[in-house]
């Protein structure tokens, strides 16, 4: 590896005779510190000062850790963080800026030249490589004079299949019970009360004034020992009362609402965020994640945004004590779409019509 120090000879690109000539490396201008002893000393002192600052920073960080009493107050925690953080900043940046300043002012800045070599191996090396591989193949019996096709065939098959021995049990276990039919059902049942999220108190129809919104969970959700979040993720509902004159009752769902009170799944039919923003004036529900907008007055149909399907409606009624109850589970899978959704819709429908179970 030859490295040269001085200005390179102008080298012509040699591509076309009519081309300009490469003027070679630009003239190297010496820095102040290269020619002036005072500037040199000054730069040295600056670098040393930065290194010293780093030492101060380390003392601040370590001292901050030991000296500051972590009381149970958030403000003192913030203060500790700030002190340690500033200490780390000084400790690190002092070294960094010092080293860079050293390199820029005092170390060599006169560029050097190194030749490159083509990456391609020489023909000789390539031939040697091919010969070695050929020899290896010959020795192994993969091909050549003493071919052993039986070994190649069985060996390759074994190699290809062996990963399955580990992967199938491993991947197979990852999906739990793989019962994706759960998508089609929630815990809503006939007669189950609609209760407030999160405390679970039941809701009387009389408490739901026109224009109000209730975030609803099924009665008994909070008592679930297992899979509470999974059930909640499917069962959350928004209960809204409109002026009955504003409500366009959907065909076949005439008895799903009660005196202007409607209940819709809170899970967006786009990718499943909770649809949490209700605009009272327009009767629009807005999903804050991707802004799908549903018209509650008109069957929660999509009026804007990326969702295509209306929010599923939960059929409701009022029980003897005046509390709002579900008439059944949802009649279709709630939440985002998936390939076999329609197949599961019909399954879900037949089961939920079976009533309470």
């Amino acid at each position, binding site marked *: 590896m030859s490295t040269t120090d001085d200005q390179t000879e102008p080298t012509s690109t040699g591509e076309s005779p*009519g081309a300009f000539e490469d003027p070679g490396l630009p003239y190297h201008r010496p820095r102040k510190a290269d020619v002036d002893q005072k500037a040199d000393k000054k730069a040295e002192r600056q670098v040393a000062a930065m290194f010293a600052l780093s030492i101060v920073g380390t003392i601040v960080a370590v001292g901050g850790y030991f000296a500051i009493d972590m009381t149970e107050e*958030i403000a003192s925690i913030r203060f500790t963080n700030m002190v340690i953080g500033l200490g780390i900043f000084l400790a690190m940046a002092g070294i960094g800026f010092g080293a860079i300043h050293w390199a820029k002012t005092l170390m060599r800045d006169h560029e050097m030249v190194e030749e490159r070599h083509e990456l391609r191996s020489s023909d000789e090396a390539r031939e040697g490589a091919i010969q070695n591989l050929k020899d290896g193949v010959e020795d192994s019996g993969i091909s050549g004079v003493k071919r052993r096709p039986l070994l190649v065939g069985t060996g390759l098959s074994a190699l290809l299949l062996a990963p399955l021995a580990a992967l199938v049990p491993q991947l197979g276990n*990852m999906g739990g019970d793989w019962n994706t039919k759960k998508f089609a059902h929630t815990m809503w049942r006939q007669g189950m009360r609609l209760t407030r999220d999160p405390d679970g108190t039941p809701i009387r129809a009389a408490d739901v004034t026109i224009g109000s919104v209730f975030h609803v969970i099924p009665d008994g959700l909070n008592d679930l020992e297992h899979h509470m979040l999974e059930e909640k*993720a499917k069962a959350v509902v928004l209960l809204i009362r409109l002026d009955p004159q504003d409500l366009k009752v959907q065909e076949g769902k005439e008895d799903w609402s009660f005196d202007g009170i409607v209940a819709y799944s809170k899970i967006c039919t786009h990718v499943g965020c909770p649809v949490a923003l209700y605009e009272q004036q327009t009767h629009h529900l807005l999903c804050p994640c991707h802004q799908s907008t549903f018209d509650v007055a008109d069957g929660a149909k999509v009026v804007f945004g990326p969702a*295509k399907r209306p929010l599923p409606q939960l059929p409701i009624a009022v029980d003897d004590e005046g509390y709002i109850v579900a008439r059944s589970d949802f009649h279709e899978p709630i939440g985002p779409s998936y390939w076999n959704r329609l197949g599961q819709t019909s399954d879900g429908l037949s089961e939920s019509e079976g009533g309470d179970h």
Partner: protein
Amino acid sequence: MAGTVQKVAGGTANYVDERTSIGAFVKFFARKLFPDHWSFMLGEIALYSFVILLISGVFLTAFFVPSVTPVIYDGPLETMQGTEMSEAFASTLHLSFEVPGGLLMRQIHHWAALLFTAAIVTHMARVFFTGAFRKPRELNWLVGFTLMILSLAAGFTGYSLPDDVLSGNGLRIIEGVLRSIPILGEYLSYWVFGGEFPGEAIIPRLFTAHVLLVPGLILGLIALHLFLVFLHKHTQYPGGGRTHRNVVGLPLFPVYVAKAGGFFFVVFGVVALVAAVFTINPVWHYGTYDPSPVSAGTQPDWYILFIDGGLRLMPGWIFGLPTEWEIFGYTLSWNILIPAVILPGLFFGFLALYPWIESWATGDKSEKHVLDRPRNAPVRTGIGVALITFYVVLVLEGCNDIIANLFSLSLNDLTYFLRVAIFVFPPLSFWITKRLCLGLQRKDRELVLHGKETGRIVRHEHGEYVEVHEPLDAQELWLRVNYEDRAPLDIEPEFNDRGVRRKGYRWDRFKQRLSRFYFEERISPVTPEDLEKARSEHH
């Protein structure tokens, strides 16, 4: 004293060398030359932020508990006192508020993650716009591309770990996207979450991916990336004395040990400063994950915004036609598949393959070690700017609620506008960028042929006023004439003289068309004859 140090050092060196032959290695490396340019530091920032991520991450694993087992909070945060939350969330609060310096480390980790992804993307843009991906570096471009994808994976898996409302909703969106994949969707969702969303498996699984799988892959690929940089030797910007056959620069030891090594400390220091002063991801405001609440105006980390923006941009209905189809009893959700699966796939696929696409257009098989000035590759630069524009439109849509709020715009109008912009702006920015590049090349020609304006006006004897132009010096001139003048490819005719159709003609024709797209319009560099002519015309 000095003698003793030297003796000990010599003895150690001898001991190690006799067992590793490290001497030859040091001889090869110590004075290896690297060219100098600020833009070469972008990749360094990425590397250093990764090191900072490892250091701060090890600290965090000492306190974080990757489990969703419910616990009752009992700690200094009064707002959370007595509430039920997952252990993951509780341990995040614990390490933030009860471990001295814990919140700082968490914030260093999060800021470093944002810097890591940002540095990778800008480094990639630098490599793209200067043509550093050309032969022999195509494979290293692919390694870097994979690192970029892995950095997104590292970011997303880490972002979700604290199990707060915000990241939980992010996971739910991912679940919705997984479900939309035809045939396999519901099973992919079960596979990832170990059953129904959210389940108990996802946090431990993300944790393993975040602390082992993804960083392990990143570490391995960084080693490969740097090995290839050493093998290829660094590219250099054009200038006098710099050719495709040499490297002009300063030696690794001591100059780059000091500069690049020092720069690590600067990056670390700056990240620590930002983390000490600016709060990031205050999960204690959001609360533990619950599938019911959500808040508006909350954005994911910046590198996920473009996918979120795509999901917002794509309408569920276009002029009364649904983008979710129900065919033969099955559901096909184009409204999710296009923005979250197909579009990112095409975008990243194009990026990954770009070095080959351009090499089909140039047909050039030689090694390139001198970088292009972006103006000298107008079509490439245009494509790059178009890609960035496309990306930026998606990012803007990803924060449309913030923008609409900030400028008191209608959210819906902004989305309608960006739905048009996504089709109009990228081609427009391609065209504008290409024209700008060609304009800059013309300006270079002008400078070479007629020199710089001096502002000195001279009056000739016959009354004519002229401005004196000063010719460029040799370095300035060389920079402006030393680039390749590429013409579109010529290909052999479709039929040979016996009228037989040539094999591979269609592929050649494709390459020719591509090449025309790239090089039909071009500004050739000034030749010495041009210069001679211009000078003689003047005097």
